[in-house]
């Protein structure tokens, strides 16, 4: 489909922009209103993470296809401090916890596919995808 959006994350307002764009893209892909909200929430968590720990980064939104199904893919990258212990960060039960990667477990719960690549001192890339149930 070729629908692709690159969004800078450097300030507060960018978090809102990113999740609203995510919602719009999800709507184009035919997601239900409930699923659009879920996608927007996941983007919000990830974007905020970038802002809080890397100060700035980028989110790329795109439509993806897998045979019959359509989906939304979100790739969040930053050149921040990186996550020292990804496994532990992913174990952290709830989003009310503080510390690097706090929003990750929550976002993972919302998405169908979720992957974290992080190198301390270099940065972090988070890739997540939600698939629309084929009808």
């Amino acid at each position: 489909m070729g629908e692709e959006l690159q969004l800078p994350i450097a300030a507060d307002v960018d978090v809102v922009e990113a999740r609203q764009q995510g919602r719009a893209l999800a709507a184009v892909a035919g997601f239900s209103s409930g699923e659009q909200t879920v996608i927007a929430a996941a983007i919000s968590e990830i974007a905020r993470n970038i802002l809080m720990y890397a100060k700035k980064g980028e989110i790329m939104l795109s439509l993806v296809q897998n045979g019959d199904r359509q989906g939304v893919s979100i790739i969040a990258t930053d050149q921040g401090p990186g996550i020292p212990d990804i496994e532990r960060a992913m174990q952290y039960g709830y989003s009310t916890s503080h510390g690097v990667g706090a929003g990750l477990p929550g976002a993972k719960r919302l998405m169908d596919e979720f992957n974290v690549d992080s190198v301390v001192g270099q940065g972090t890339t988070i890739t997540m995808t939600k698939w629309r149930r084929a009808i």
Partner: protein
Amino acid sequence: MEVPILRQGQYLIASIQSALTDADLSHLREALIAQVGRSRCRGVIVDVTALDVMDSFAVRTLRDIAHMARLRGAETVIVGIQPDVAFAMVQLGLTLKGVATVLDLEEGLAFLNRRTEERYLETKPRRPSDRG
């Protein structure tokens, strides 16, 4: 984006009009705390009907507001969480436990009235001759 805060009797009503940034939410919290402290406020209503998403920061902020308001003797109730937003919240693991949540403004006012009455009755001395 400034959130308008209205006064209705002894209650404050903050009506969120659109999507808020984290900074906006923080400002709202400060503004509410300041106003609750200033006046003899018994209750705070935060109307989130227009919020597109309630993520961890929003929930933390609302909890802070409720906590601080309670320290100053005021009850807080969140009204207007949308069905989709509520569903996304619970999937994220955010439950707003400990904070009253009701459907809409009407219910919010009814809730605060009940709570105010209850707390009033609570504080009254229990001698029958005093009733009336």
